């Protein structure tokens, strides 16, 4: 017993000590590195954004951006497997159905309306720098295919890369409301949110809108993507209510994920995808910038795993794999806002804290009786906010208060939008399936089929 405990303490001490050593010994160098790394982003890169680049450079940049697009695409598979794995077998088909339709719907609506709502261009602002629209549909002339459009990519790559991001917001919501929301109601909500809200509020920063003008920094979307989805997830989880049997007699009954290997597959795919999510957000293949962003991203993810492992071991007594997996995602969401402007040691700290934060947040949500089966709110909203604010702490030359303004602005608008859309859907079609359907599972109820018909399940799940 005591030997065990000692081993335990000893192990922890070594971990802490090592981290400290590194932070101390490398602070100077790392700071330099950030400066070196971020220099090109703010100067060289922007210059090249003006100056035309060689055909070769344009082709490399575009190739890199296409690769990044693929990586973001595969995140949708990651979300699908994480969400279905963390829920019960009887709802797996339903969850997979939603996660399969989301990128399809996302790309089509983004082509129809989203792209031109998010990137209205300088001349198409309608309401100050608050709302713009460039017209329906996509299309370009020959210039869109050369570096005249952009030194980093063609018009088509631009559309596809941004389009792959778009659906992510809806996917986040999907995870929080699953196992009880009506299929059609969800599809209608997701379509509206992805087609209208995500691109609109995205234009504030990435489309060159008012928050961009203020100096708000959100490199790859801790706020623009993750907390935009997270706010709607929170509202959705509250409005649709907890799953039957989750909270009983003052206690919390765990409803276990039915397929943990699926969750692991998903988290690794998401980490992989994040290389494109963050790496692609440099918007060119500029070697120093992209590779630096990949390093901060990976270190934060790794530290997220470690942070969540220790937090879980401490608070839950046994190390919970699903928490470690959430911790990786937490680290990734956390570093997304500042991957380009924080040092490597800072990225470790951001990830470590995000990993611990996500464990505490998941436990707290259950205490607040907000039933979020996959921890979507904790991962995407809580750590999205944390990451955005962390830029104000460790980001070179960034202002905490501006970051806070951005966080609040997105919070207010997204909460209102989610309330309106979910409210509308509830009034028109209802939000929640019947108790019988919930008991027998949405796979039978909504789709008339099972995910694993050959296997005998524990029927009481």
């Amino acid at each position, binding site marked *: 017993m005591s030997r065990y405990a000692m081993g335990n303490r000893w192990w922890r001490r070594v971990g802490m000590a090592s981290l400290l050593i590194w932070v101390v010994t490398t602070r100077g160098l790392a700071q330099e590195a950030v400066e070196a790394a971020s220099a090109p982003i703010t100067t060289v890169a922007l210059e090249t954004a003006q100056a035309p680049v060689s055909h070769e450079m344009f082709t490399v940049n575009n190739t890199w951006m296409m690769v990044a697009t693929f990586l973001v695409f595969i995140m949708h598979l990651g979300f699908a497997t994480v969400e279905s794995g963390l829920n019960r077998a009887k709802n797996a088909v339903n969850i997979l159905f939603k996660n399969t339709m989301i990128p399809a719907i996302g790309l089509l609506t983004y082509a129809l309306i989203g792209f031109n709502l998010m990137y209205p261009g300088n001349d198409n602002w309608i309401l100050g720098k608050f709302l713009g629209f460039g017209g329906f549909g996509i299309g370009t002339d020959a210039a869109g295919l050369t570096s005249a459009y952009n030194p980093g990519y063609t018009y088509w790559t631009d559309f596809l890369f941004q389009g792959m991001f778009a659906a992510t917001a809806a996917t986040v919501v999907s995870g929080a409301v699953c196992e009880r929301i009506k299929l059609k109601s969800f599809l209608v909500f997701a379509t509206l949110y992805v087609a209208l809200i995500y691109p609109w509020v995205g234009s504030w920063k990435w489309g060159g809108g008012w928050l961009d003008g203020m100096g708000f920094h959100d490199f790859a979307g801790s706020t623009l993507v993750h907390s935009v989805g997270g706010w709607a997830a929170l509202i959705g989880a509250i409005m649709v209510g907890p799953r039957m*049997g989750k909270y009983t007699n003052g206690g919390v009954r765990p409803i276990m994920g039915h397929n943990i290997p699926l969750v692991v597959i998903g988290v690794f795919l998401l980490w992989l995808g994040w290389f494109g999510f963050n790496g692609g957000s440099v918007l060119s293949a500029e070697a120093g910038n992209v590779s630096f962003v990949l390093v901060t991203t990976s270190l934060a993810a790794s530290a997220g795993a470690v942070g969540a492992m220790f937090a879980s071991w401490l608070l839950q007594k046994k190390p919970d794999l699903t928490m470690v997996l959430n911790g990786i995602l937490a680290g990734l969401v956390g570093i997304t806002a500042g991957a380009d402007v924080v040092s490597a040691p800072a990225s470790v700290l951001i990830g470590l804290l995000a990993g611990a934060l996500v464990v505490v947040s998941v436990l707290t949500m259950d205490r607040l009786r907000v039933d979020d089966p996959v921890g979507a709110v904790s991962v995407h909203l809580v750590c999205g906010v944390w990451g955005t604010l962390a830029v104000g702490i460790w980001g070179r030359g960034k202002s905490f208060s501006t970051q806070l303004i951005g966080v609040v602005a997105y919070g207010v608008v997204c909460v209102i939008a989610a309330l309106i859309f979910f409210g509308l859907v509830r009034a028109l079609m209802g939000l929640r399936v019947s108790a019988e359907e919930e*008991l*027998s599972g949405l796979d*039978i109820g909504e789709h*008339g*089929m*099972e995910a694993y*018909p050959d296997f*005998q*399940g*524990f*029927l*009481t799940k």
Partner: protein
Amino acid sequence: MKMITAIIQPEKLPDVKAALFAAKVYKMTVSNVIGCGQQMGYHETYRGAIAEVNLLKKVRIDIAVNEDFVRPTIEAIIRGARTGKIGDGKIFVTDLLECLRIRTGEAGSEAIG
């Protein structure tokens, strides 16, 4: 001694368990079965072909009890399992000649509890 075997709806297991515990019946053996009774199966459709699933998922509970526990046990099961809808299930009672506790070798009535 009697062996009481109940076939119930899977989702009623927690309720039946609670009712049994309330009736001071703490021991039972539970298994998954599929069954076919008055209740019609639901339809699964798969790639256009319709499957009538006429064997539905059910839960089977076996409880060995002494004579004076037969009534309370049956009543507890009914209390926990009844919804009034077709498919609520059945209870079967058979005679139990002998019961042994493997750990101690005790036999008969004392081994049951």
